[in-house]
Every structure is written in C-alpha cells, then in structure tokens.
C-alpha cells in the first residue's frame, strides 16, 4: 500500500475517522487502533514479515525491561548486548548476508581459489533498517539511563510500528515520540490543516516531480552506453530531483499524516539543495538518520572531542556506515566515502560549521557568492548520486567516463519542457519557504484570502492528477 495510492487514501480516511470519532479520544484505545492499523498496513506489503516485526518489537520491549530490572551491571550489559546482537543479526542476515558472501567469493577468486559458496534467497523485509534503528535507539537510551523503559507493550509497539514512519522513516527517538504516544491527543484544527498541506506538497514532489523524473532517468541509466553525453548530464541532474522528490515527498506525507493524528514526527529534510557546502547538505538531508548516527555512533566513538585525527577517523566511519546503511552494494559504500572525502577539507580547516543558518536569511535573493556556493555544492552532490544510482561501481565510472565526449555539446534527446517547469516551481516555492519546515507551511501569511489559497491547492491537486507519471514505488523502501 503506497502512500500515493487510492488504497492508502481510503485506509487513512477510515483510520482518521475511527481515531477521532469512535475511540472517545481515549489515548489507550487510539493506540490499539494505531497498532492494528500499522500491522495491517505492514501486512499489505508482506504479512509473513509481520512476525519478524512483532518479534523485533517484543525483543526490545523485553530487554528494555530486563535491563532496568537487572540486579547488577553485568546482567544489564548482558541484556543490552543481546538486543544489539539480535537486532544487528537480523539486519545482517536479511540485508547484508549475500553481499558479504559474494564479496568473499570474489576475493577468493582474485587470489586464485574456486569458492563453492551458496547465497540465500532472502527477500529484504520492507522498512527493516528503519524499525531496527528505532529499537536500537530505545535500547541504547535505556542502557545509558537517558529514558525509562515503557512498560505498556501497546504503547511501545506503536512507537516502533506507527504506520506513517514504519517503512521509510523518519527514524524516531523514544525521547521524542514515546511521550506523545503515552498522553491524550487533542484535535487541533490549525495542525490538521497544516498536516493536509504537507501531505499535498509531499504528493506533488513524489508524483509530479519524482515519478516523471524517473521515466527519463531510468532509461538513461539503464542504457548509458548508448546515450549522448548531454543525456547523461540530464539523467544525473534529474536523478537528483527524483531522489529528493521521492524521499522528501515521502517524509512530507508521513509527517502530515502523523500530524492529522495529533503526533509530531522529526523533520527529515531542510531544503538540502540550498546548501552552501557539503557539511550543510548533511545537516539538511535525511536529518533523522544523520543525527541518529551522530548520537549513537559518532559521539560514542569520541566525536570531535579528541585529536583531529580521531575526529577525521570518526567522521569517515560515519559516512561509510551511512552509505552502507542504504544497501548492500559497493556503490553505496563508495557514495559514503565520496561524501566523506568532500567533508574532510571542511573538517580539517575547521569550516564544517560555517553555515548553520539558512542561506540569505531574511532576503529574497542570495549573494553571488552564496549562489555559486549552492550551485557548486549541488553539482558535487549530483556526482555522488551517480554512484548511488548506478548498479555497480564499474557502471558509475562508465557513466562518468561517457560524459566526456563531443556529444556533450548536443541537445538532449529527452524533452523536459513541462517537467522542467514543475522543477522550477518546486525550486521557487522551496526557496521562498526555505526558512520554514516545508514548501507550503504558513501559506496563509502571504495568501491571506482563503479563495486564493484554495485555488493553489486545487491547482496542485489537478497537477498531481494530470501530470502524475507512471506510479513508482518509493526509492527508500528498499533500504
């Protein structure tokens, strides 16, 4: 059940109506409803993996309690590591087993041996990376005495399985989400309208921008050998908008849906393509994952408290792990390493926190310097996306190599007239709203007259209906 499907719209409408009208606004009953809906939502993908989800939830719930009730530190540590190992074990088996086996086999071949290794025919359970990280953060926070364990299993299960964030995040923290689950939720008109607006903007980004980009990007990347260089440039640029529209669109729909149910989720995107350097890009792209790695890996490793060398080492580890989190492929590792390499000069010269504010704050236009900084950063990110999108490292380098030909100076054979116009609209709207949380937030401030606002909504809805590309699944579901 995709967020951009009629099935989800009907499902959500039903949940919304029961949630606010048939539960007596009692949060415990609402939580039971959310849990049943979330299991149904997940079961629509593959009901077999519901058992894995329930087991994973039960494991972390149980170890959380056991750690708190443990008689001594030794027992506490035992339960902690048991949870960590099983969680990472599942992730390893379902996501990385075949990658390691194949890589090992390749290594043996390189040294002249003939390996007889069989791979497993495993299907990646959708959202495993996301809900595993939810559980891990919960267990780690309890172990570090940052939170008390949740003793109500339903409440805890809703924290892990809440359907808007179950399959592609944002990766929530117990400190942020659990308190909202364990208290009364009141319907707030302003927030509900805001939620609908964020869903609308998310659908626009996903259906109009990302899906239409995909219809051009896919054939270019699949047949890059035969494409003129101008098409390859176009393909790489459009993939940047595809993945942004796809993932940030998903996040907007998730945040908007949750807000309609009275729950605030963590922000996941902060207009990353308006970043002035790579460090700023990473403060604005997939924020919930970046901060997760910062809090649960970078800081425990020592963060930037030690020597410069330790700081560089830790940063490199974070980028590699972040790349590897995305999938079991050398391309993702290379993508992580590429970004680490871009980040290092900033870190070494102490310029990684130079741009912590919003670009051109309080102004309509950026300075020329800021403009070129944004364009340069965007182009670096686009190069990275080639590695992210290509099926192998060889293909990624082949793609880049093919760009350097005389056909670079021809017109692309793909026409992007209407799509280009919509990308321009996306950039303009987000530029104007860059100091807010998403594209349409507080639109009433400059479209005061309600009919004008509604006209904008109707035009967006008609654009979604009219220019919706072939419906594609969300890219981040595979992670």
């Amino acid at each position, binding site marked *: 059940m995709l967020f951009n499907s*009629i099935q989800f719209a009907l499902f959500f409408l039903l949940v919304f109506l029961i949630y*606010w009208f048939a539960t007596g606004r009692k949060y415990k009953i609402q939580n039971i409803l959310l849990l049943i809906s979330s299991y149904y939502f997940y079961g629509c993908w593959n009901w077999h993996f519901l058992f894995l989800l329930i087991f994973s939830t039960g494991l972390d719930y149980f170890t959380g309690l056991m750690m708190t009730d443990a008689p001594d530190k030794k027992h506490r540590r035992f339960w902690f590591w048991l949870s960590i190992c099983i969680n990472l074990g599942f992730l390893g088996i379902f996501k990385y087993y075949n990658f390691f086996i194949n890589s090992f086999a390749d290594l043996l071949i390189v040294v002249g041996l003939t390996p007889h290794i069989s791979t497993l025919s495993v299907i990646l359970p959708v959202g495993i990376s996301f809900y595993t990280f939810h559980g891990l953060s919960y267990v780690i926070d309890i172990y570090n005495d940052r939170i008390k364990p949740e003793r109500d299993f339903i409440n805890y299960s809703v924290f892990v399985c809440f359907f808007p964030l179950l399959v592609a995040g944002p990766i929530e923290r117990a400190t942020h989400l659990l308190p909202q689950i364990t208290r009364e939720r009141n*319907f707030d*008109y302003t927030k*509900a*309208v805001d939620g609908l607006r964020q869903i609308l903007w998310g659908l626009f980004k996903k259906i109009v921008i990302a899906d239409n980009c995909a219809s051009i990007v896919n054939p270019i990347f699949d047949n890059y050998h035969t494409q003129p260089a101008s098409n390859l440039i176009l393909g790489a640029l459009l993939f940047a908008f595809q993945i942004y529209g796809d993932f940030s669109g998903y996040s907007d729909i998730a945040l908007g849906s949750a807000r309609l149910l009275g729950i605030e989720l963590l922000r996941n995107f902060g207009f990353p393509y308006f970043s002035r350097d790579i460090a700023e890009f990473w403060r604005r792209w997939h924020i919930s994952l970046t901060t997760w790695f910062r809090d649960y890996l970078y800081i425990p490793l020592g963060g930037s408290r030690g020597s410069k060398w330790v700081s560089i080492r830790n940063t490199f580890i974070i980028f590699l792990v972040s790349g590897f989190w995305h999938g079991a492929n050398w391309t993702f590792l290379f993508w992580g390493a590429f970004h680490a390499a871009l980040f290092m000069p900033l870190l070494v010269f102490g310029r990684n926190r130079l741009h912590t504010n919003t670009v051109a704050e309080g102004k309509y236009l950026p300075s020329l310097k800021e403009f070129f900084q944004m364009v340069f950063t965007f182009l670096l990110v686009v190069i990275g996306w080639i590695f992210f999108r290509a099926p192998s490292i060889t293909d990624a380098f082949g793609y880049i190599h093919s760009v350097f030909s005389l056909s670079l100076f021809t017109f692309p054979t793909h026409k992007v007239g209407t799509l280009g116009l919509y990308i321009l609209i996306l950039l303009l709207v987000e530029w104007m709203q860059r100091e807010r949380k998403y594209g349409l937030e507080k639109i009433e401030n400059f479209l005061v007259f309600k009919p004008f606002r*509604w006209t904008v*909504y*109707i035009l967006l*809805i*008609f*654009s979604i*209906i*009219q*220019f919706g590309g072939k419906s594609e699944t969300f890219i981040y579901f595979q992670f």
Partner: protein
Amino acid sequence: MNKFINNSLIFICIIAIIILFSLFFIPNKKINENSLFANIDKHKRLDSLPSPKIILIGGSNFAYGINSKMIEENTHYPVVNMGLHAGFGLMYTINEVKDNIRKGDIVVLSPVYQWLKSGNEMLYGEEVLIALLFDVNRSDLRYLNVEQGIYLLPNTVSYAVSKLVPRKLDVMGEGADWYEKIYLRTAFNKYGDESQHWKYPKQSISIGISEDNSDISLKSVETVRKFRLYVEKQGARFIMIPPSLINYNTIRPFANKLSAILKQNKTPFAIEPDSCVLDSSLFFNTAYHLNKRGVEIYTRILIDKILE
C-alpha cells in the same frame, strides 16, 4: 473538529463540481471528429441491419484488420464491424452489442490479449472509454455497470482534469502525415472497417522481445463465457477467434495458457492462436493492425470459420 470536517467537505464539493462541470460541459476539441466518432456510425449500422447478420466485436485489431465487404460477399450476411479501440475494455465492448443480438445472427469475438491478462485494467476500460462516453456518444453510458463505474472513477477524474489543464489525450498516439488521415471518423467505411490505411506502405513497428508470461484474468474468461451463453440463448452463433499476431514467440506462453483455460470453460477459440500468426510484412503500424494484404489473409481465415 466540526470546522475541519465542514471545510474539508466544502473543498471536496468544489473539486467535485469543477470535475463534473468539466466532464459534462467542456468540449474536448482534441478528439473532434477523430476515429472515436466512428462509434456513432457503427451503432447506427448495428441498429439498422436486419437479422440474420454478422456482428464483429474486438478492439482496433478488428477495426484495422478486417475487410467486412469480403465477408459479406462470401457469406451473404450483412456485416457490421464494431471493433474500434482496445482501451474500451472487454466489458463495454461486449455490452454495447448485447441488445442487438437476435436469432440467427453470427457473433464473432476477437479479444485482444490485454483484455484477458490478470492484473491490468483492460477488462473495465481505460481513459479513452471515458472520452467516448462523455464527449462522443453519451447515450452509451447505459452500457456501464456499477463495478465498472467505480473502477473507472480515477480515469474519469483524470480525463475531466485533462480538459481543464490541456494535455494530449493518448487516444491513438501521434505520428506522420498518414497518421492524421487514418485516425479519423471519415477513414471508416460503411461496414465499420478503417480502410484508408490500406493504401499506405508498412510503417516501422516496435515489437516486444521478452516473453509474456502474464497470468490469465479468470474474471475476463468468465465474462467471455457468460457472453457466449447469452449469445447462444438468443439463438445466435458464437465464434471466438484469436487476434492476428506478429511475433508469436513472445506471446506463446500466455496464449497457450489462455487457450487451455478457455477450453476448460467451454468457450474455446475456433482456431488455435498460432494459426493467426502472420508474417511481419503483413502488418501496418502496430502489432495488431494489418496492411491490405494482411487484412485479406486474416479475413479469409475468419470467412473459412464462419462457413464451416
């Protein structure tokens, strides 16, 4: 909460009104007098022909693949070719002729394979059916049932919006000079065959290379079976023949499965699908549309079956 519900309902009503207005009152100039309007002429002929008659039912495979005059001369039955567009879907294509089937008639159905594939929408129809029903022949709305209506709702909305925010309606694609001449109402002869393209040379045709191993839509098969029973109950003869095929290798796994299931349902093809495989030189611009020579050969196959 009340304010939220009220505003939501008002907003939904406004959108619904805009969509209904567009659907019923805004003309679609893009399809003006194109091949979809041939549907009106076909219905006029269907209503006017006395029984016994031959009714040909299919998609564009029949519109662009049959010489009805040849059939009429060989069988001495008056013929009407109702085939026009696969996007009308199996249900509509069958329902639009049902009222005119009489004792002694011969009903020939040639279902395009997409209608019988599981997991696609071709049983119910596509957006082009909405264009037909709202901007060509509104009286045909009576052939829709509730199930189809629900299924076609997204297409209906999409079509209504397409009239407000102009875009090309993908009725028949677009192409060169010849294209503008053959996808017109006037390109059809009195029998309902598109005959203008017979004078044009073969065009390039893209043919799939991967094997089609789609599942069979049991609902579509059941629809065909019920239609056969209906035809026979009216005292008419039912013949089902496979569409002509340009590249049998790709469709073989599907066609074989389909043929077996149709036999199980006692509604078999009158001839096996491989008998309708024709040389690629006999096709015109798609893997379903035949050129003049191809039309003659395929029509001859059909005549032989009718005369059996």
